[in-house]
């Protein structure tokens, strides 16, 4: 995340119109890196890494061994990639992360916002950010925030879950919100049923 924040600062400096010379002196990096960031943005995910992450997103119950076997990558690479993108533990939002999020929202850069939240697995349960025109993949965050502010989201949530259909990683994240709704409605048996079904799968 340190590297990412540094890249973010460089990207901001480029957008402000600072010359590559000054940026390279200030951040102690080569000009090639600056050109790369300028061309590809600060949130670049390598192709190999993307393969691992996409595989995991579609098969959230798979283990490191399974991923490495199916994609033919070494275990250590898969492990490192998953760790880098906070798959094992969601990243708690600190000041740096919030700055990046604010920047992306201000710029209406939803593509990167989606990538940032989904690929970097940031835990936004307690953070209240105003999302407008939220991309489908991060709608669960909007729903979670609505629930925290006391809005009844059960109908909206059911629609969202039925649209997601597959048992992918995002579906599981949205399921956590469903559990909260069910607990508020005191429908505990339904939660137990969902878990029993998940176990069977």
């Amino acid at each position, binding site marked *: 995340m340190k590297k990412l924040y540094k890249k973010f600062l460089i990207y901001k400096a480029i957008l402000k119109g600072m010359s590559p010379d000054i940026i390279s002196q200030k951040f102690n990096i080569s000009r090639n890196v600056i050109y790369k960031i300028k061309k590809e943005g600060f949130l670049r995910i390598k192709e190999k890494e993307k393969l691992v992450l996409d595989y995991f997103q579609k098969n*959230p*119950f*798979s*283990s*490191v061994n399974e991923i490495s076997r199916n994609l033919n990558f070494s275990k250590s690479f898969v492990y490192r990639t*998953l760790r880098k993108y906070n*798959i*094992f*533990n*969601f990243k*708690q939002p600190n000041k740096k992360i919030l700055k990046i999020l604010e920047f992306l929202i201000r710029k209406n850069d939803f593509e990167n916002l989606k990538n940032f939240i989904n690929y970097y*697995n940031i*835990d936004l349960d307690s953070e209240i950010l105003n999302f407008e025109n939220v991309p489908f993949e991060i709608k669960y965050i909007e729903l979670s925030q609505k629930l925290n502010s006391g809005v009844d989201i059960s109908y909206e949530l059911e629609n969202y879950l039925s649209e997601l259909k597959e048992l992918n*990683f995002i579906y*599981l*994240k949205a*399921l*956590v919100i469903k*559990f*909260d709704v*069910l*607990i508020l409605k*005191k429908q*505990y*048996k339904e*939660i*137990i049923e969902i*878990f029993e079904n998940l176990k069977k799968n």
Partner: protein
Amino acid sequence: MICLSLKAKFYNSYLNALSLEEEFEKGFTILRKIKRIYKKLTKKEKLNMERFISVFYYNYGNYKKAYDFSKNHPLLRILCLYQMGEYLKIINSDYNILGFEKFLYIYAISLSFLLIGESVKSIETFIKVYNIEDIKFEDIIELYYVFMTIYYKFIGDDNYIGFFKKLIQLIGNRVDKHFYAIVSKDISNLKNSPKDKLIKYYFKGRINKAVEIAERYGIKTILNLLILFHPKNYMKLKKYKQIEKFLKFSKKPRIKLYLLRKRPYFKFLNKKFYLKDKGISIIIIELLVNSRIKLFKLPKKDVYLDFLEAEF
């Protein structure tokens, strides 16, 4: 699933649902799984998980463990202390909580005042509930009637039956089954959790078992309420130091008079006292019956009793 954070969230919800559905056996298997991943979680996740574990133990009835896990959750801590009978600690505590949580806090304080014998302060504290913003009477209706039932029973007013009936009428099956069992003596809904066992043992007359469970899991308030609503014999209860403060609610020992016997006597605290000088003896009995002598503080070798024994 290799995503620990998501796993933790799932386990939290599952554990919560299991404890509220009273499926504690399944809950303990989940708890074992949670312990395996606990160390690998982030600080925030650990705190959150502790809350759910504490709630699980609270619903199960192990208040000592629930208290251990509630270090960072003031309201849970207060509720655990209340169940463990640490009333003074609750009264002396000072937490800034808002909304419904504040209501629960005030509710615990007012009941604590009541159970230490300060009924006036208790009702004064409970009135503060009406000053809390965003609280509707519908939200607190159950706890209001529970408080009133305990309050009236405590001050010895039979109105408590009316409040309890009203509570059943308004809420029906949703009444806390333990409170229902304590007041109504109906144990048909109880299962096998420590709280349930304690109530069952108490009603069956196995006080030693009930006290043992109360001591082991820290379930003191339920035991106190049981003594309050269904007092047992003073002789049975006085053995246990744990319920010393609630002995005043136990059944007063009876004086049995056997005046038509060849050698008339009366029985008090399982001891026979022969009545040789009927005049003095009758005065003593009258004194005891009219409670001019405090029965509980009657020393073993009272002057009058000594006198009677000497006569014998």
